[in-house]
């Protein structure tokens, strides 16, 4: 929808028409003003860092909580940069990818313990190709390739390719990656049956690392 305001007073018209009203599709006046200032001062990264800690969240995952959520798989995550922690519940399965969702509508897509997409964070990881990494887990480690996909400022997709090295030591897997001016190291911890139960994975330059703890289904 395009509205064109060419008012003939030899210049510029900006109309910030905003709600009160019963039109849900008009912008909110308060957030509009706040937003206008924040757009000038800082680009928005993620939510503010307040809220429960990982310990508090872990305590809240009681058998009653699990039953109320139909015993769906549960994750606890923490974004390192903002120290913001959240609880996620698995809501969908697609092949080997489980999509987990927070209360405030941020989602993570995890394939066998590896993060392959985020949504709702802003500067999201749109998709990732970690097939090389999965092959290396089976073959005991070695050099691999990893591809990340993001959106640029215009909303167009672009890829970042990284050259990685996977090292497996007992129950710890270390994936050291480098490429296109970035370097990061993902670490994973597995259980007795080789499932990744916790990890520290890099999302992208804006968000840095996320710690993921898989609480499974019970």
């Amino acid at each position, binding site marked *: *929808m*395009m*509205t*064109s*305001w*060419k*008012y*003939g*007073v*030899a*210049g*510029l*018209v*900006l*109309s*910030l*028409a*905003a*709600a*009160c*009203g*019963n*039109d849900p599709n*008009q*912008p*909110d*006046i308060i*957030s*509009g003003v706040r*937003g*206008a200032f924040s*757009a000038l*001062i800082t*680009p*928005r990264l993620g939510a503010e860092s307040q809220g429960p800690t990982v310990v508090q969240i872990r305590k809240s995952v009681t058998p009653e909580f699990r039953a109320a959520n139909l015993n769906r798989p549960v994750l606890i995550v923490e974004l390192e940069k903002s120290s913001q922690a959240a609880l996620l519940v698995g809501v*969908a*399965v*697609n092949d080997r*990818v489980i999509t987990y969702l927070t209360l405030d509508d*941020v*989602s993570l*897509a995890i394939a066998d313990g590896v993060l*392959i997409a985020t*949504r*709702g964070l*802003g*500067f*999201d990881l*749109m*998709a*990732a190709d970690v097939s090389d990494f999965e092959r290396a887990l089976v073959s005991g480690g070695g050099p691999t390739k990893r*591809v990340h996909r993001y*959106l*640029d*400022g215009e*909303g*167009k*997709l*672009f*890829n970042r390719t990284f050259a990685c090295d996977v090292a497996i030591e007992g129950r710890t897997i270390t994936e050291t990656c480098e490429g296109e001016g970035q370097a990061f190291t993902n670490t994973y911890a597995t259980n007795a049956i080789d499932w990744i139960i916790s990890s520290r994975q890099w999302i992208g330059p804006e968000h840095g690392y996320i710690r993921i703890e898989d609480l499974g289904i019970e």
Partner: protein
Amino acid sequence: MKFSATVRKVLFGLAVTCLPATNHAQSYSFSNYGEPGLIDMPSAQPASDAEFALTVTQFAGAMRTTLMFQAFPRLSGSFRYGRMDDYFGEDNPLWDRSFDLRYQLLDEGEILPAVAIGLRDIVGTGIYSSEYLVATKHLSPGISVTAGIGWGRLGSFNGFSNPLGGISDKFLTRPTRDYGVGGELEAAQWFRGDAAFFGGIAWAVTDRLTFKAEYSSDAYAHETGRLDLFEHRSPFNFGVTYKAHERVILHAYAMHGSEFGFGVTLPASPLRPGDNGGVETAPTPVAVRRPATIGDLSWTKTPTATLAAKETVRTQLEKQGLEMEALRVESTRATLHIRNFRYVARAEAIGRAARILSSVLPASVETFVIVPVHQGMPLAAVTLKRSDLERFEYKIDGAEQIYRRTEISDAAFSLDPIDRDPNLYPRFRWSIGPYFLGSIFDPDNPLRFDVGAALNVQYDIAPGLVLSGTLRQKAFGNVDQADIDSPSALPRVRSDAFQYGKATTALSDLTLTYNFRPAQNVYGRLTFGYLEMMYAGISSELLWKRVDSPFALGVELNYVKQREFDQGLGFRDYEVATGHVSAYYEFANGYRGQLDMGRYLAGDWGGTMTFARTFANGWEIGAYATFTDVPFDQFGEGSFDKGIIVSIPLGYASREPRGETRRAVLQPILRDGGARLSVQDRLYDVVESYHDLNNTWGEFWR
């Protein structure tokens, strides 16, 4: 068809594999003239592609406000509005508009410097008129050296006989500008007259702080002579710029050994809006079907199953800023018509709607047809397979894969009224909020503004038929104090704008609009009522556009009567029939051209050329010029109508996802020739973004 498919593939390839526009690896800073440069002198560095910057500087009685846009990677244009004190005598300044162009001849390489050629103040009075050829070389990432040769104002200090005099004697002298009523390109002067050298060094000490020193070839003859604004003691200028914030750069200078100057630059870029991909919440994930259930058609026997599904789809869509216009569910196919209020990236609306359908509809429904709708007009039919949604949700190349398997076709008669949501019509919506009306370029007071409250009502009577109106009440402001006496040789179709600005309670618009699809590939609009601030009447439009074509053709016919100055219900005597035939073309990389030919409000005949650069995130920056059969001296100051167009996605300021954009038109001079009716919701912009889904397909999976 074949041609378009190839074009589409090429464009898509670009969309996916192009790296994001990155800042120049090497530093550059802005000059007093609003473009990358030293202090007064230009450098040969281009700004980042698509960057625009607003620079305001003040030095010794000269204030310059410049808006620069790097329209192409190699070509930038600047528009400047400046004040020169005492030009017409004590306390009588000159307010002057000027326009610059700069072209990058050579990119900086390992050995070779960057080379650029520029023209300053090419239109109008020419107080800054100059031309230059300049080279810049980085000695290290933070230190650059610039040297160049200038003509005109840039050839006024320590000038020498024009080296181009070897080509022709004509180059040895520079004629004074016979600018008539202004607004015309003054090519006769270019590169003529004495030339002079200039140069300087810029040193970026940190990534925030830069020191600059230059040898200026500008003698400031006028300012130091007749106007006596300052003393030119030395050609050396020194300056420092400090990047206080990503989008705020401060400058300070010591000029010509006698004065200090200050400035601020506000750069921005549609390619770097600060929220890549937007701020929307997570979409509904695809619900993968159990293979055994796909063949199960037992649900078709219970009509309530379909009703329940439709209601769930409706509520899910609403949560994500989409409205269900209609939903038809058959055993293996569903057709969903949606209204999109939230997503500027149109493909994102499609992707989210598709995922909602996959999570609600019975497993046997394999084909989804999603049709975005605007004011009752279906705009395009996007057909995709549920199996493809399931297969490609998390693949690294999932966007390309599903695009290849998606069919986009014309949707003229896709909507069966039976399937329409009964709650949609009639429906009444209203909202109240503040408005801001600004006016610039008035020589007496360059910035005037009004602030007040605006009440907007909209009544959806029937599909395609809408009654809407806006009432404004001014709270305070000084727009009505403008006392412009602008004589006009033409009927006063726009030059009374300031009279309209005096209204404190104003009916901005009150219209009955009918949008319809008369035929395949054709869209229609009929608007009746108080169409805009100054005119009421009837406006009709037809647009022909194929879904897969970058080309469109339109025709518009209007009959209007001029409204009373008080913006009430009354009229003045003037009425006129206007209309245009328009051709639109989308070039590669988001560049758009438009040609309108027809009759304008003053009864003059002619054409408008518009050229703009559009971005997938809703930004648009462009310029237009209109030439009609009104001779330049009859048009008056400015010679012909021209302006800059900027469209900003609303979500940019509010940090909330919004599907609308706001357009502002900046006209340096407002006169009566080439004036066009300002009617809302013209068809092309409504339609185009839903045809070129490839452009925003990167956000399908967002």
